[in-house]
């Protein structure tokens, strides 16, 4: 030892990139605080809205449900559109993923092309696609199916490609070593490994699309969303809120159902049945019967949806011939002489997203912590908070926005509060999940030293999950910027108002300008996130 222990540092010297990352995170937090106060979100505003709430409740109750037949028709239409759209996205995503994944792509050009297509699909919001497709195919289901189906490829295709890249190459090599061709290699070596992830991602996207379908109703896609939009336009809050309640129930049911299916997928089916001598197909055990019944039901649901969405191939082909002319309307981008207004509105959107992310994080952190199985004070508390997160996830952001527009009046505050509450659903879940994924052995090691529950949490659980937290908050900011754009459509502030307005008065060049602005913004956030992950990870 060259130096006495007493002379050496007991704290590490600060590192350059680490400091920079800390500064950026603090800057984002500071920006959130500033944005919240600048938007006038404070205790006084919240107290004011309590008064409005009583008024709102009077106009909302009793809820006015449509007749059972009408309600069934609306639910059926919405579900048919959402199932068809999700199916479309899966059908497009599988080949896109095979081309985009580094280990299955035939060549670099195909890989870059496919990745670019996936990024593009994610970059164009489904509402904008719906606006375009409604001009092409008319009001109804087709536009909704295509808009949600294409936009979903941005998420589904990316996750599918990631799943393909994460496979164990062993079985594939083994199949190739046995003389299999390329398609056999994919079917026998790759597909069985990624199938659970594929199904689980599709179900997840189905949940998201169900919520999105409400928003699409506001631009003219058939179903529950369309009925909600009509009701609110006529200030019929009793009918509107009743339908919003139906959507909430559907969303929660879908979330519970898809959660159950996803859990069943990850559990290994026990098939210990002894084969009879000479038998070469598996015996009909209860679990095999059950799996076949599920498969049959799923197939029937898909068929019923395709039929229910009333997709006409003739209408599709007819529309395609008009696609070129319609897209021509959107180019070149125009400012319509309101560029300063657009930039001001964009700035408001940024503030909404920042403030909503901050408020959402403040709400989501404690809720997520209490929902994590390994941290919650008791299993019951954990279950209650998990349930709360699922419930909030079930509420479409648009319904939240409408409620807050009524409570706090038109404008930014409504949008911010809606997104903040909505963030609890996503961010709370991510926080809870990343806490549950930490290495238990580390926690046990700290516990073994005689540490208290809080000490274990602080020195074993949090350090393992913290990098993920930062990532999740940035992801939420990214999601909020996109959502903040769209909530303007119902009058919740920001640039979305101009998006809706421009498409209504047929200034499609302005729609393109708005899109490009939002896209640039989202990319900037994405770049910051990528950089932070590299520095922190």
């Amino acid at each position: 030892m060259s130096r006495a222990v007493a002379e050496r540092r007991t704290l590490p010297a600060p590192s350059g990139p680490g400091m920079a990352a800390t500064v950026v995170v603090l800057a984002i937090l500071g920006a959130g605080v500033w944005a919240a106060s600048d938007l006038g979100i404070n205790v006084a505003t919240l107290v004011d809205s309590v008064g409005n709430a009583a008024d709102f409740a009077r106009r909302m109750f009793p809820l006015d449900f449509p007749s059972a037949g009408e309600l069934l028709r609306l639910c059926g239409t919405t579900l048919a559109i959402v199932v068809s759209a999700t199916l479309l996205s899966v059908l497009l995503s599988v080949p896109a993923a095979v081309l985009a994944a580094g280990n299955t792509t035939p060549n670099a050009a195909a890989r870059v092309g496919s990745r670019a297509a996936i990024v593009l699909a994610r970059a164009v919001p489904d509402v904008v696609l719906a606006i375009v497709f409604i001009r092409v195919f008319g009001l109804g289901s087709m536009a909704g199916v295509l808009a949600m189906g294409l936009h979903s490829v941005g998420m589904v295709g990316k996750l599918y490609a990631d799943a393909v890249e994460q496979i164990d190459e062993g079985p594939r090599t083994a199949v190739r070593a046995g003389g299999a061709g390329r398609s056999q290699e994919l079917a026998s070596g790759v597909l069985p490994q990624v199938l659970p992830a594929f199904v689980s991602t599709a179900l997840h996207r189905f949940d998201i699309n169900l919520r999105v379908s409400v928003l699409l109703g506001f631009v003219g896609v058939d179903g529950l969303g369309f009925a909600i939009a009509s009701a609110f336009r006529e200030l019929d809050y009793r009918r509107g809120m009743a339908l919003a309640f139906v959507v909430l129930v559907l969303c929660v049911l879908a979330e519970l159902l898809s959660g159950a299916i996803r859990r069943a997928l990850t559990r290994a089916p026990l098939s210990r049945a002894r084969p009879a001598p000479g038998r070469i197909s598996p015996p009909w055990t209860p679990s095999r019967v059950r799996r076949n019944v599920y498969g049959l039901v799923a197939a029937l649901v898909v068929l019923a949806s395709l039929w229910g969405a009333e997709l006409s191939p003739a209408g599709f082909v007819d529309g395609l011939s008009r696609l070129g002319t319609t897209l021509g309307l959107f180019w070149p981008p125009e400012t319509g002489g309101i560029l300063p207004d657009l930039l001001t509105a964009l700035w408001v959107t940024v503030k909404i997203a920042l403030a909503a992310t901050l408020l959402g994080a403040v709400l989501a952190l404690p809720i997520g912590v209490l929902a994590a199985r390994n941290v919650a004070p008791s299993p019951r508390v954990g279950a209650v908070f998990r349930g709360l997160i699922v419930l909030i996830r079930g509420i479409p952001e648009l319904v939240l926005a409408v409620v807050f527009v009524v409570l706090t009046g038109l404008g930014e505050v409504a949008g911010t509060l809606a997104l903040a509450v909505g963030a609890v659903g996503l961010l709370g879940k991510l926080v809870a999940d990343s806490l549950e994924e930490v290495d238990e052995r580390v926690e046990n090691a700290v516990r073994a030293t005689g540490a208290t529950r809080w000490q274990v949490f602080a020195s074993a659980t949090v350090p393992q999950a913290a990098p993920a937290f930062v990532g999740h908050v940035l992801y939420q900011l990214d999601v909020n910027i996109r959502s903040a754009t769209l909530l303007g459509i119902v009058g919740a502030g920001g640039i979305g108002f101009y998006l809706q307005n421009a498409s209504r008065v047929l200034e499609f060049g302005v729609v393109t300008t708005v899109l490009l602005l939002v896209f640039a913004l989202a990319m900037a956030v994405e770049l910051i996130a990528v950089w932070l992950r590299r520095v922190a990870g």
Partner: protein
Amino acid sequence: MHDVVTFQRVSKRFGATLALDEVSLSVPEGQIAVLLGLSGSGKSTLLRHVDGLQRASAGSVSVLGTDLATASGARLRALRRRVGFVFQQFHLVGALTVLENVCTGALGTLRGPRLGLFTYPKRVRQEALGHLDRVGLAEQAFQRADTLSGGQQQRVAIARALLQRPEILLADEPVASLDPESAGQVMGLLREISAEQNLTVLCSLHQVDLALSWGDRVVGLRSGRVVLDRQAAGLGRDEAMAVYSAVARVPAAA
């Protein structure tokens, strides 16, 4: 007996590393040749050349009369059909049944992609079940592959290779992930099958004792060069161990 595998001055380069350095080797039909050597000595690379999973940078590889320097596409797949491969990590699809994993061994003789046991012809399933019976796992045919122990999974992998009706079986450290008892079972199985079907086996191993007791011939590799090539009978344990020492010089002659 004629040679089924012939390497002539084969070299393989990965960037700056020379994985195989002028390897010349002939394996006659029905022989069990064991490759010994440290990790990174070129054992796996050598085996992967026999199946055309890797291609020589220089020299020539001839397997069952096919020149691997020129074979590609359908001709390469036709050769692979005749060469079985067993891996250290078994390489089974855990989520599929044991029987379906075995059936994938027949893909080289079938057309088109397959997923699900029912997509394989009945005769393939019957034959697959027969091979599972041969390795003692017929009772587990409809279990998921990942519910089996390591030794059982390796036996499934052998059944999969047998379904190809191979003329050569390559085994890349087939027992390195197994406990000594399972390792003995798997090596015994390979030996029996080789004798029953006059099957040529090229097998890389880490354990000198296993090599001496189960192999006909021992080939030692160090840094991509053949440093030992002798009949197993009469080869002393110390002579074989010398392959692992970095300094000792072992005469490279049979």
